[in-house]
């Protein structure tokens, strides 16, 4: 580690600082717009927002979908990586995991439509196998009220993301710690808890926070696979933002600021739950 040349450091960091101005300005401008009511500073918009039934149902709906999609993606990603990392780390394995990364979320959403909608492949196959009579007897899995189509899309897209985040950890990890735990009489659970989790949890947490934030506020997949009611929070925001006379624009800003705050709270909570001391400990060693 060098420590001289402060000017050089600042010069090197100048581009990233210039970039950070953009999202920072965006966030503060959105906050400001949500706090201005008829020319003066007030919480009027938030009062109005919190009285809206559509806002709450949309928020809880979005949270449910997001928690399920994030959780399932993390679990599948973790299981795949820890079981198969020697295979994934070779070229064919890596390429196959990169494959879904090539497709935009909305394209993956379209694939889910092709497979799971009532006139999709599975319905078609079940029909020809004689399991269902007509396409109407195939369960509604896309544009459904439970958001199954959205969850399936996110799982397909986010599992590779989780695998690629976790892969370096498993490849570089010292696997002798596990043998040490076993030698000392620890079981499989102890080996996982003491020789694996401390290394994996910070990256898993980071991936989880990124996914949670992304899924909660993404627009494309709900647009394609969401139900008309309840709507994901991003769809509601977009509708308010472009509602005819702009009178609902402050609501759009307030909804997005509330979502941002929620993401902040959840990330902080997750961060607090996972053992912070261990994180710092392992960070220095890797």
């Amino acid at each position, binding site marked *: 580690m060098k420590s001289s040349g402060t000017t050089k450091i600042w010069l090197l960091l100048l581009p990233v600082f210039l970039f950070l101005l953009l999202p920072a300005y965006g966030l503060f401008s959105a906050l400001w717009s949500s706090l201005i009511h008829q020319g003066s500073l007030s919480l009027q918009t938030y009062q109005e927002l919190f009285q809206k039934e559509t806002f709450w149902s949309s928020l809880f709906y979005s949270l449910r979908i997001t928690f399920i999609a994030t959780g399932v993606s993390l679990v599948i990603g973790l299981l795949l990586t820890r079981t198969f990392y020697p295979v994934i780390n070779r070229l064919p394995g890596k390429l196959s995991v990169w494959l879904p990364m090539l497709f935009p979320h909305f394209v993956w959403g379209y694939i889910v439509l092709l497979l799971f909608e009532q006139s999709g492949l599975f319905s078609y196959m079940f029909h020809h196998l004689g399991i269902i009579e007509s396409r109407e007897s195939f369960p509604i899995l896309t544009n459904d009220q439970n958001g199954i189509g959205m969850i399936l899309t996110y799982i397909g897209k986010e599992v590779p993301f989780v695998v690629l985040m976790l892969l370096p950890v498993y490849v570089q990890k010292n696997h002798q710690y596990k043998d040490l735990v076993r030698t000392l009489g620890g079981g499989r659970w102890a080996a996982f808890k003491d020789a694996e989790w401390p290394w994996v949890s910070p990256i898993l947490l980071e991936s989880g926070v990124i996914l949670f934030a992304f899924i909660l*506020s993404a627009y494309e997949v709900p647009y394609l696979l969401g139900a008309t009611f309840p709507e994901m929070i991003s769809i509601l925001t977009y509708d308010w933002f472009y509602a005819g006379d702009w009178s609902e624009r402050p609501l759009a800003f307030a909804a997005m600021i509330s979502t941002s705050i929620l*993401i902040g709270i959840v990330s902080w909570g997750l961060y607090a739950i996972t053992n912070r001391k261990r994180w710092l400990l392992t960070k220095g060693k890797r």
Partner: protein
Amino acid sequence: MMKTLRHKQIQFWVYISILFLFPVLFLLYKSFTLPMRYETHLHAHFTMQGWVTLFSENQLIQATFVSLGIGAIVVILNLIVGLTAGYALAFYDFKGKSLLEALILFPIIIPLLAITIGVHIAMIRLGIADTWVGVVLIHLVPTIPYAVKILRNGYTSLGTAILEQAYVLGPDPWQRFLSIDLPLLKPAIRSTIFLTFVISLSQYVITAIIGGGNVVTLALVFFPFLNSANSTVLAAFSIWFALLPFLFYILIELLFLLLPYQKPWRTRS
């Protein structure tokens, strides 16, 4: 031991086939066959109609070039920011470093929609809304955090020793960067280019808001297509989305060939 590895390999490919390969292959199959009719018997009609229709759309060709152009500029800006910040974060200790690291992650934690509607008015005032400049700028938000992260890790695993050696040998920083940093960082740069381009290509809503319908990227053509075109054309269009990063990647690889120490016959320099 060997046996379990072999066993694991088979297991892995079964899972991967179900999760990733099958959906992609089905999409490919769809793009070459007529839409399935529910009542008729099981058989596939081969057709090139989907691809022919797709490429006869002028809009698609134009949008492809717009997407490539915007993607290329976004990639270049990402590399500039990522390489400089990555270098600083990998090799220097300074006050507020961990705060800065958290700040760099924050654009992908804050809803992109919040940031976009937040900067919209300012972009109108600056005259860059409805132009490609505005679209490029907004595409930086979901990409740069990843670029900095990947390139920082690249520099960290490179270590200081080889860079110090270069410093001893020649103080021209640009030449040092071209002949040492760039070739050695190639894997990290590759991942950055690829990921950045794919993310830029995938942005629909922020492109629609900031571009105001004037900057028509591929994503902006795809969404209206969803309601009008048949599944064969849409499947071909979907495949096109994945092919484009490949084309871009090949272009970049050709550019990489121009770098020092890439040609096998060039042993002296």
